[in-house]
């Protein structure tokens, strides 16, 4: 590899944290009580390895990055005082970004990202109280949202230059394969048969195409 053409970085880290804050069970954030009575304090640790390889010159440029990591908390009064995943704990995080210059006029690009879903609390059982189905929880952040991933595509056309005036037309497609990345996951009784419970996933955007015209003078 020619040193000037490519760049390779690998970094590792381990850190310990004190005075980590999380909510007490049954927190009442709108209460007139002092907010610190609704919080619990403890320690945390985070460690991981990050790698990046980048191609800086030529018709094809871009990078591939990968991070493996772990972020945990240990707070008395939460999760039976055992270590648990912080919400933002992300085991894998991958990004692949490429740009290719087809000719003087056209450049195309693509990027794909993937990361492990957030650590969340899902129920391990259910029961009925007050005529309503309630859910039974055993571990804080013991489950994962489904993994997040999407592909974005783009193409840019350089338009004619007139004196100082340069302009370009850019086309792009966000989430090209229309992945329904979950935004929330809720649990409820089935509307038709209330004796059954179901899991409802809500996702936001799927494909978002866009066209933009950029000019400079």
């Amino acid at each position, binding site marked *: 590899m020619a040193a000037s053409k490519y760049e390779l970085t690998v970094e590792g880290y381990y850190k310990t944290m004190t005075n980590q804050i999380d*909510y007490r*069970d*049954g*927190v*009442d*954030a709108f*209460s*007139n009580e002092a907010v610190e009575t609704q919080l619990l304090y403890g320690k945390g640790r985070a460690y991981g390895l990050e790698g990046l390889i980048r191609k800086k010159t030529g018709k094809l440029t871009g990078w591939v990055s990968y991070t493996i990591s772990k972020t945990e908390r240990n707070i008395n009064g939460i999760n039976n005082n055992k270590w648990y995943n912080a919400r933002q704990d992300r085991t894998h995080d991958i990004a692949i970004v490429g740009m290719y210059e087809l000719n003087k006029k056209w450049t195309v690009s693509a990027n794909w990202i993937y990361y492990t879903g957030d650590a969340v*609390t*899902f*129920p*391990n*059982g*259910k*029961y*009925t*109280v*007050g*005529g*309503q*189905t*309630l*859910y*039974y*929880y*055993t571990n*804080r952040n013991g*489950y994962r949202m489904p993994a997040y991933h999407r592909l974005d595509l783009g193409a840019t056309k350089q338009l004619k230059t007139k004196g100082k005036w340069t302009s370009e037309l850019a086309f792009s497609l966000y989430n090209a394969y229309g992945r*329904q990345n979950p*935004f929330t*996951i*809720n*649990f*409820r*009784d089935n509307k038709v048969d*209330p*004796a*059954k*419970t*179901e*899991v*409802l*996933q*809500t*996702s*936001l*955007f*799927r*494909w*978002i*195409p*866009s*066209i*933009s*015209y*950029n*000019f*400079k*003078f």
Partner: protein
Amino acid sequence: MNKNISTAINTSTNAFSAAIKIFTSKRSGIIAAASCLALGWLTGCEKVIDLKLNNAEAQYVIEGNVSNRAFEPAEVKISKTKNFNDDNNFIGVSGANVGIKVNNGTSYNLTESATGVYRNAALKGVPGNTYTLNVSVDGKDFSGTSTMPSQIVPLDTIFVADEVFAGSTLKTVRPSFLDPVGLGNSYRFIQYNNNVQVKKVFVQNDELSDGLNLPFPLFDDDTKLKSGDSVRLNMLCLDRFMYKYWFSVEESATGQGESTPTNPVTNIVGGALGYFSAHSVTSKAVIVP
């Protein structure tokens, strides 16, 4: 001066946005940006999914109620947690010893009137009294204590009016009652539409409404009330531990909340889910206009 003006128009099935940004050069140190974002309609896409959930060891669930109304017997229901994919039908636990002791020394035994349902019609709650529940079942002991608030705050009237909730107009019930001066009053509302209980937890206290009559709307987007429907509302005066219980149920145990899900803060000692509540009840009914 180097100027860069860009115009972007994004369209999609879900969102429409137009943005105009004007930047002047960094050299001049001035960045002026004008952006206009028009979101036509942002609809979430909902679908029912399969999710693999673990099963946990079944826990006891105790639901105990003592009210001041003579026709409502003191009742304790005992059941166990179920796996997520089981049905929601109540399966009672038989053979428990259930007793309630009053702070004046009187004790009542509750007898099993249906599987897992224990009752004593002679026990009528008195405002100001403290009740202690004792349950022993399968060699395990559970207990709980609750005080019926000394003042019965009556529900004066209820009215139904159109309210806008999350973009849709719903016929919504508001309870009218005068909170007594002095902090510490807590209320729970149980609503029945055409004699079917609304599956919502309605709970409030007087931290922001001490001594006032503020009829907060009871939003229910599940059952859509229509003119001619009958509505009955029970207002329960609770002690503060039962307020905490219902508040934490609503916030974090209904599978819908936005806060971190947890088990509600129970007043049952010994490791069971559920509650023991001594409360006063007043009731009003209305036909939706």
